[in-house]
């Protein structure tokens, strides 16, 4: 059995994995990146549209251009990586097992591990669309891969279910290829992706966007022949009599992403309700020395945020290897972070009491759009710790808060803090 050793192992070579590995190497620790695909880069490789890097490089790049900058650094810093290699197991003493077709089974020992496995798309089954199961149903990302990487068109006439970013980007991409996109159908009363994509991908190409509708039946036995769409009420129940038939030969699904956490579970770490691992403010999972970042932790809308988060994970893994590895772990005292009103989830899930003097980065998503809101942090005794105004919030945009809890006078004895996004009580003229 082939064996490797490294201070830090990074699983996944997407935007997250690469940025984390670079930080580790810069601190002069040994690092190894493991990637199951045949090249470095992850999902960005198939995102040939632009819109990447506005924050990180203050330039508008395509996905492959963006990631190439990181790949170049990996090469310059001579960071070792192995491709075509899938990690299949993580044991509790931080031994990893991976397979590839050259070395067979590989055993890797590490002091710290960074999980950066990305996410996968939700499928039809996850949303239970009734009807036949013909050929011609794809997830948007699958279609993106076919068109942009393999060079095949998955159909001629399309209906896209879900107005997520990938769906909207594919609507435009397919139109460019000469396909007809009949409609983008969204169950919510508003678009679930970014506004900029709604304008640049749908409106500019006259692609109809039908909100508060969903696909209620798939027609065609062998190949998709069309879909029935129906209007839904507030509870997402079909409104009788609202059915419309749209003819198409392909249905694309852009109905959300799920963090890819089989390995995380396998390692024995806990998951939270957003599907990502439970982490503390250092992006450390419930297992000491296992860190995580990128879409495997929470689905990000911007790659720049992934890179920034990953740098922190890399730095924290370094801190762990240098200061805490080998030491008996003293029981951590923590404060839990809870999702309150209109908060779908919040990261981190917990804060180490010893870090109260540091700036803590909170990321959260809301459940529904709202305007003129107040984002509040309160402790379990209902003491207000922090508040911030925001003009609007929408589920498709992750909200980031940087808060120094000590400076804001947190009671260090509190057990939890509750984060809520509430309508602003008074109408204010001035904005944030």
């Amino acid at each position, binding site marked *: *059995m082939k064996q490797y050793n490294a201070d830090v192992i990074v699983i996944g070579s997407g935007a997250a994995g690469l940025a984390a590995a670079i930080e580790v190497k810069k601190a002069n620790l040994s690092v190894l990146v493991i990637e*199951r695909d045949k090249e470095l880069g992850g999902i960005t490789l198939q995102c040939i549209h632009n819109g990447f890097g506005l924050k990180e490089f203050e330039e508008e790049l395509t996905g492959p251009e963006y990631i190439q900058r990181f790949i170049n650094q990996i090469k310059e810093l001579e960071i070792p990586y192995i491709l*075509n290699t*899938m990690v*299949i197991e993580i044991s509790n003493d931080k031994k990893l*097992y991976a*397979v*590839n*077709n*050259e*070395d*067979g*089974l590989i055993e890797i020992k590490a002091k710290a591990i960074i999980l950066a496995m990305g996410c*996968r*798309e939700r*499928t*039809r*089954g*996850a949303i*239970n669309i*009734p*009807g*036949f*199961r*013909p*050929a*011609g149903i794809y*997830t948007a*990302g*699958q279609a993106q*891969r*076919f*068109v942009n990487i*393999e*060079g*095949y*068109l*998955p*159909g*001629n006439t399309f209906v896209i279910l879900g107005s997520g970013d990938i769906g909207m980007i594919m609507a435009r991409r397919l139109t*460019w*290829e*000469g*396909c007809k996109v009949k409609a983008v159908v969204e169950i919510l009363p508003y678009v679930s992706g970014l506004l900029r994509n709604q304008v640049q991908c749908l409106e500019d190409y006259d692609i109809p966007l039908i909100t508060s509708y969903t696909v*209620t*039946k*798939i027609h065609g*036995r*062998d*190949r998709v022949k069309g879909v029935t769409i129906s209007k839904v009420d507030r509870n997402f129940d*079909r409104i009788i009599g609202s059915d419309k038939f749209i003819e198409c*030969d392909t249905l694309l699904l852009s109905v959300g992403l*799920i963090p890819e956490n*089989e390995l995380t579970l396998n390692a024995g770490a806990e998951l939270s309700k957003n599907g990502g691992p439970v982490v503390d403010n250092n992006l450390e999972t419930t297992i000491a020395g296992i860190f995580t970042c990128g879409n495997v932790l929470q689905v990000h809308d911007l790659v720049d945020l992934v890179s920034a988060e990953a740098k922190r994970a890399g730095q924290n893994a370094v801190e762990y290897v240098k200061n805490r590895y080998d030491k008996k772990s003293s029981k951590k005292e923590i404060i839990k972070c809870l999702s309150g009103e209109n908060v779908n989830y919040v990261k981190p899930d917990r804060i180490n009491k010893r870090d109260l003097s540091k700036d803590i980065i909170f990321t959260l998503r809301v459940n529904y759009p709202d305007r003129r809101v107040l984002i509040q942090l309160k402790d379990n005794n209902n003491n207000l710790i922090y508040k911030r105004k925001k003009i609007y919030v929408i589920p498709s945009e992750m909200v980031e808060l940087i808060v120094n809890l000590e400076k804001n006078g947190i009671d260090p004895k509190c057990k939890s803090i509750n984060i809520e996004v509430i309508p602003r009580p008074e109408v204010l003229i001035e904005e944030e």
Partner: protein
Amino acid sequence: MIYDVIIIGGGVIGCCIARTLSKYDLKICLLEKEAELASGTTKGNSGVVHAGYAAPREYIKRNLCIRGNKLYTQAAEELNFPFQRIGSFVVALEDSQIKVLEEQRRQGIQDGIPGLEVILDKEKIKYMEPNINDEVVGVLHAPTAGIVSPYEMTFALADNAATNGVKFLLNQKVRRIKHQDYTFTIKTKTQEFKSRNVINAAGLYAARISKLVGLDYFEIMPRRGEYILFDRNALHLNKILFPTPTKVSKGILVCPTLHENTFVGPNAQNITDKKDISTTEAGLKEILEAGRKLVPNLPVRSSIRNFAGLRAVPDTYDFIIDNTDIYGFINIAGILSPGLTSCFAIAEKVVEFLELLGVELKIKEDYNPRRLKPERFKDFSKEELDQKIKEDPSWGRIICRCETIPEKEIINAIHAPVGATTVDGIKFRCRPGMGRCQGGFCRPRVIEILSRELNIPYEEVTKRGEDTNFLIAKTKDLTLKEIEGGTE
């Protein structure tokens, strides 16, 4: 060439008959209209090997089921298909239902069903199946009931039959049968076959096949059953859970699968279209509601797939197992539930019929009843795995991440005795695309491997045969066409 036996239909019944007859020195051929075996009812059912207490005594299916259940032990051992006798509960939620269970037990024991017992001790019931509804008042426990993967079993039967000389021909829809001088001439779109004996195991289309030789004495109507499948690890059931039966049906069950998933279903809808395996909104609601009565914490959010199967319901409501008036023509029709359970017993009947027809049944010297278990990545120890990959690197190339399926398993499925030729064929043989992502990532890879191994172009790879192509064109083709059109 004249065959001794031609079997029409490659479902579990046809394949089980093929495998049972492959023991004898006979020339046998099986014709299936679809591109893959197990494409009909065999693909969409509950996969429960029933204990046999359910059907009324006047039906032949009752005894065939009881006998069939017994025959599973040896068959599963010889053919190495996954099968587990996990036992079933018929669940009573009201005191009045207990007497139904008592009566099923009494009759079942008389008819030789082992181990039937009515349990009224709630604590014991909860211990045996912690997920059961708290309102349970009693259960009928049938320890011999089991679960099987119907299509994996069908492939095992077919592969073993093929190894023993049975010819399997796919994409051969029987359209005409001529009967003359004790010989049947069977016509499909492209070919003609001759045989002394014909076994009609055409499932939903068995009445149509029977009419081809002028035997018009039954009809078959489709009755649809819908299902929802839940993600692995979402719920762990120990037992197959049935509600107490009513006059109409055995009801909607909640059941674990051999791949650690759980499903709920089926309902029962009489329909007219024999191809309508679509699911409906109302139906999915109905089964969820029914399932919740047995298991209140059904993991609704973890559903990964819904599907439906069609029961082939004959107007007699019982199996039609006839050595017909047309010499050499055997009808195995109307094989509704518990047909899967009964298949080995049905095959025994066919052997009896052939004996009566004077067919010489000499056991082949080189008959091999065993089929080796397909090698699976997941079954290997770390050392074995390392060794395997060194011998053949395609063991180390993981194609399906959700189920951890390497390229080698897919190649093996393609080159099995009755190999897969379509993406669904691969999926049903070795599960890539069956997991959480339902093929999101691996489908392009599987298409690539099929195209390479079968030596056909990428665009010709289908989901499940004719007219189910995946991909329409290379990028730029459509735009080019438009430009060409514009210059004309």
